[in-house]
């Protein structure tokens, strides 16, 4: 029985490593490759943390196993009480402190590039493509009319949709993120991006996708009973498709139902 506990504690690090190892092949890992440079850097940060904790975890588990094993063989003798050991206290205060300090300094650059407005790429810093308003439980989106800039106050010619954000591929874009009620969080798992939406604040968020496709927008802050269904879709498309989309949306927004033929007026909106 004594040996069992040693083995028991040794099994966990092995199991953990095995699980991490097989995860990618079962699609339990990231939702695909990060779609932009900063996303990759965020992944790198994640891997760095993973390595640090793996080393610490395996180390502690091995030490625990070793101590138990030794103890199980000892027939007599007293335990060694480490409580109050000055040296030990100093070591396990300073070591983690160094690690944490290292991590916080190391990630500073990536964090700044995502969050600080003066680090935003120049072409997007003052030019949002859309305003995304989080609301229980949906994402309401407002675009400027094609060829115009998005203004802080809604304009008569703005274009509106819900849960459906389109951006051009391969270039940075910036959105204005707001909340109409409670705190939400705008999450783009494929881009490794997330930013809280806070009532009363308009938060600029920039990102870029280098691959066309449809990706998920999820709410990452528990915001009420319908949180789980607060999903949207990010469509990344070629510049010309993007422009065509906005053009089409504009036509829909201006639809006055007048065409002579009633059959044709049947909700443009129902065709995707």
């Amino acid at each position, binding site marked *: 029985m004594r040996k069992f506990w040693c083995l028991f504690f040794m099994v966990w690090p092995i199991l953990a490593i095995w699980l991490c190892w097989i995860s990618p092949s079962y699609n339990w890992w990231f939702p695909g490759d990060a779609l932009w440079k900063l996303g990759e850097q965020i992944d790198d940060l994640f891997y760095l943390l993973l390595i640090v904790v793996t080393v610490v975890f395996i180390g502690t588990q091995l030490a625990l196993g070793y101590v138990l094993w030794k103890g199980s063989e000892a027939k007599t003798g007293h335990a060694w009480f480490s409580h109050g050991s000055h040296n030990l206290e100093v070591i396990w205060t300073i070591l983690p402190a160094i690690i944490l300090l290292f991590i916080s300094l190391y990630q500073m650059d990536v964090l700044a590039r995502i*969050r*600080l*407005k*003066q680090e935003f790429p120049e072409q997007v810093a003052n030019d949002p493509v859309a305003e995304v308003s989080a609301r*229980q*439980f*949906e994402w*309401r989106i407002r675009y400027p009319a094609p060829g115009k800039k998005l203004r*802080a*106050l*809604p*304009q*008569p010619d703005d274009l*509106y949709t*819900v*849960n*459906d954000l389109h951006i051009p591929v391969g270039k940075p874009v910036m959105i204005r993120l*707001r909340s109409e009620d409670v705190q939400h969080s705008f999450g783009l798992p494929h881009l490794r991006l997330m930013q809280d939406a806070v009532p*009363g*604040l*308009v*938060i*600029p968020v920039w990102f870029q996708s280098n691959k066309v496709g449809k990706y998920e927008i999820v709410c990452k802050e528990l915001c009420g*009973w*319908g949180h789980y*269904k607060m*999903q*949207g*879709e990010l469509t990344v498309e070629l510049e010309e498709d993007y422009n065509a989309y906005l053009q089409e949306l504009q036509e*829909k*927004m*201006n*639809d*006055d*139902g*007048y065409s002579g033929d*009633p*059959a044709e*007026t*049947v*909700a443009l*909106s*129902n065709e*995707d």
Partner: protein
Amino acid sequence: MKFRNILLSAGLLCAALTGCGEFKSEFSLNEKTTNLMPEAEDVVKEQLHEYFGTPEDLVGWLKFPIDYGAEETVTLRVKSFEESASGKIVLDVAADEQADYQGGSIKVSEEEIYQISSHDPSSGTVFVKPGIEAKLKTGDEVTIVKRHGGWKLKRGRNLYMKHCVHCHGVSGDGEGPTAQYLSPLPRDYRKGVFKFTSTISTEKAARRDLAQTLYEGIQGTSMPSFKLKLIGDDMEAMVGYVRFLATRGEFELRLDGEFGVDYSKDVVTRRIKDEDEKITRQEIIEEFRSMIESDLPDLVDSTATILAEDWERAESPDVMVVPKKPRPEPTPESIARGRALYLSKDTKCADCHGVTGYGDGKQTEEYAQMPGTTPPITYAKPGLYDDWGHPIKPRNLHSGMYRGGRRPIDIFRRISAGIKGTPMPGFGTSLNDDGKIWDLVNYVMSVPYENNSSEIKHAEKEVAEHTVK
């Protein structure tokens, strides 16, 4: 102590393994039905059961213009068949472009029908369970039932149970478990009345209207957009199921209306007490029974016919609100004309929406009369009420939120046909001039931007301050 713990964990384990017991969803009865005398209530219940079934066992009444989904079959040749009872059959699927047989069944002859348990579309292999007893040879013809009759209604039901039931309730009564937290309340379909339609004020909602509501959601309410969830067939199936629930509810209400005149609980007690009529409860029951025996089939049939015609008519282009003129540019002149109309005696918009459009007109402070009450009874609290008896506020036109859609045509339709089931009337007939309605539309659409040019500070803070200076 220890024993109790063991017992407790054993109990928990059992509960986890078996789930929370059998759950059966049921259509509930309208209050009007339960107010009938028990014999009449039973008749309504039986009719509903016969013609609409239960949520688990739906009945598609072919009288109604609802697409329940017809049976779809395909005849294929057997490529190979294993003699053993393994139930594995390889079919030649080259003839069928959409070889998706999941959930279907295979018909070897009229009597021998086997459920398909799994299937591999690429090789055409299907498995049936239990094994197949019939002798099959390569080259034999078998019929695959890809979709059973009524599949659309069932698909609609499944989707409804997944996406809508927690708000709109199993019977579409708007009393799902989340409804109590919502304002406005989810729609009770059972009146067959829908607010946002493209049809004239006297007609029902068309399929396209329900589809638009599902696609866009209802902005400013908790009714979400399902454009990412209901794709292809699913949208149609969903709309069909909403219509199914609405027809069911309306059918029930109409029967209640017929029987309620003489056989509601209140009326029966009154009749028994009535000195002149000299009738006992037993006699009333007899009277009801004989009425049912002679009239019920006709009553049911005519009720269903009326409903079917109503729904069918809504699809017709003749009752669709289509402007006869294009929208004029929202020039200051057009907006001023709209504003004048808005304040005029002809429309009385301001009585509800307020002179400045904040939704605070004088009617919001007056006592409204309950519909169908003689002598008139007013609601206990002042303000407007909708047909479901819930308080309702005229829209604050400054909010820039339009529940029925924000395209000019949407707002045109709201003003022309009104918002059904609410006090907001339609002006298509009374104004009788699409130019005037367009002026109103232009005015309404300009209201949210009235303050844009003035120096009113935006309440929100731009987070440029995030930057370290």
